[in-house]
């Protein structure tokens, strides 16, 4: 297993220390680790387990249970496309196909240049403006293929 760099270890230890004493803190800790490091490195699991007095299996079990927690570094931009029924009713399937072709990747993959990760999401709560997408926490509604290309171009230019 890859070990964490001393800097990252310090980050993880600090995060755990901030949450110690609060009831049931593991999810909160993992959210903070992912916010700080971009994902949850395998090397963080034993460290979090030790600091919270949990077994590695318990921490690994939680990390792998939840779709939101990543175990690999994401691209610069994370593009989430809603796959749920309301968006399907408004062409999410075709939009997803377009995005796959445009980025040259499938769901859960990152472009070779490391710029974009593509993720499915099951409802963004924007169902009256379907199809919906989220890019780096920004929500978009009534996304057409053309709008998708514009957003990708903007994000490519911005970073």
């Amino acid at each position, binding site marked *: 297993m890859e070990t964490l760099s001393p800097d990252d270890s310090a980050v993880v230890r600090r995060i755990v220390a901030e949450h110690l004493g609060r009831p049931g803190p593991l999810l909160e800790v993992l959210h903070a680790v992912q916010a700080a490091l971009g994902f949850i490195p395998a090397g963080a699991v034993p460290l979090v387990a030790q600091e919270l007095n949990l077994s590695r299996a318990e921490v690994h079990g939680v990390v792998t249970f939840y779709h939101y927690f990543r175990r690999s570094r994401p691209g610069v931009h994370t593009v989430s496309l809603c796959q749920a029924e309301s968006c399907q009713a408004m062409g999410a399937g075709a939009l997803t196909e377009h995005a796959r072709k445009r980025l040259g990747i499938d769901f859960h993959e990152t472009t070779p240049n490391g710029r974009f990760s593509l993720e499915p999401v*099951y409802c963004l709560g924007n169902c009256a403006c379907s199809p919906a997408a989220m890019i780096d926490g920004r929500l978009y509604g009534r996304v057409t293929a053309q709008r998708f290309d514009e957003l990708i171009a903007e994000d490519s230019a911005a970073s």
Partner: protein
Amino acid sequence: MTVTVYVPIDAGALSLGAGEVAAAIAAEAGRRGTQVTLKRNGSRGAYWLEPLIEVVTPAGRCAYGPVTPGDVRALFDADFLHGGAHALRLGPTEAIPWFKGQQRLTCERVGIVDPASVEDYVAHGGYQGLKRALSLEGAAIVQAITASGLRGRGGAAFPTGIKWKTVLDQQAAQKYVTCNADEGDSGTFADRMLMEGDPFVLIEGMTIAGIAVGATQGFIYLRAEYPHAHAALKTAIAAARHAQYLGADVAGSGKRFELEVRLGAGAYICGEETSMLESLEGKRGEVRVRPPLPAIKGLFGQPTIVNNVVTLASVPWIVVHGAEAYAAFGMGKSRGTLPIQLAGNIKRGGLIERAFGLTLRELLYDYGGGSATGKPIRTVQVGGPLGAYIPASQFDTAVDYEALAGIGALLGHGGIVAFDDGVDMARMARYAMEFCAVESCGKCTPCRIGSTRGVEIIDRILEGVDGERNLKLLEDLCETMVQGSLCGLGGMAPFPVQSALKYFREDFRARVN
């Protein structure tokens, strides 16, 4: 003199460019040397008109929409700051027909107030419920909720007062109030709109619940897909704490109530109440076997109220206006109002709060204006991904828990997703199984394995392998999942499949891809 302009900060409005519109208005006002006070409100819920902006005139709020940044200069030219005529002018907001017939109780302030301001909340009647609750015995508050007929708006429709009574009757050193804000059903966004547009009403509702049953700690379990709601809740909780509506001495009563938001992490199953409690405890969101009920042994083993956002947000209105006033709305055993969410392939989608009893047809055509594509609406799915598909022949069914149950459907959280006649119902059935496979917590076999087998069987049907035999097998599998699953995910995921088989069997034919 400065003119106040409201531009929504609701995530749905932002997704259509409300942020850019606000910036354009500020810039144009600066360029012209005009005084404009921009206020950011929630959405009124008419998403087809978003971004919908409102100008405060002596005659009230005047709406314009949908506004793009490119319209802003022309709006200034038309003197929109004084309600001037323009193609986008909609007139007094409340007079727009789509809003006029609505009965907004729970969402009475959504889209009207500044969601970051506790002062604005109080100025619009906020915290009157808490004030009244603090003058009552806990049992009297619980009795009022019971008498109002309020049922859980998350989907299970369990009588809220009975749940509260159970928690009230427990002897425990610590009790909890938890809010299930894991609004994962496709086609639903009422929780999000409430949290973004009027977060204090949820905070007040939870505080009243805490006072009623003797719980001193609340948790809001919010889905990670709602970053805007997260920000709104954190701001509102800090403001409520600062104004001493939360903390060790709630509104000077000497009673304690603390509140914290915790984020989920993208697991649909965590909307199931026991799974949510596991997740709040920092564990895998696996379903617990009941009994014991959460009201007896819930969060960290303590008596716990688990209610949906809309349920808790309905509490202040009931406490202020009385149980009878609330129960006067609705029909049969479905009392009060329901924020109905119209979504999918629909021309005028959004949030419609009305008393129970409206028919699907009225919603889809009078409010919704038919499909967005202009084609006939072939079916609607009501109640999220576990809800049945309802064919057009049943659109005269009332939106009411019992009426929908009567046709083998469910109301759930009140989301209605419309599909035009281009929908492939075999694909939608396959999706229901696929979704269940992705989201199954894995604890019980019918759900974990059954959903994957379901996808495979539908694939074989579509490939033309043993069509009739596999259709029979699919029906059998659905029955096994319904009867044998531990919770509603595996137990209800077959509903959309069964309804598709029942009403749209012609779609389950072999095809060439």
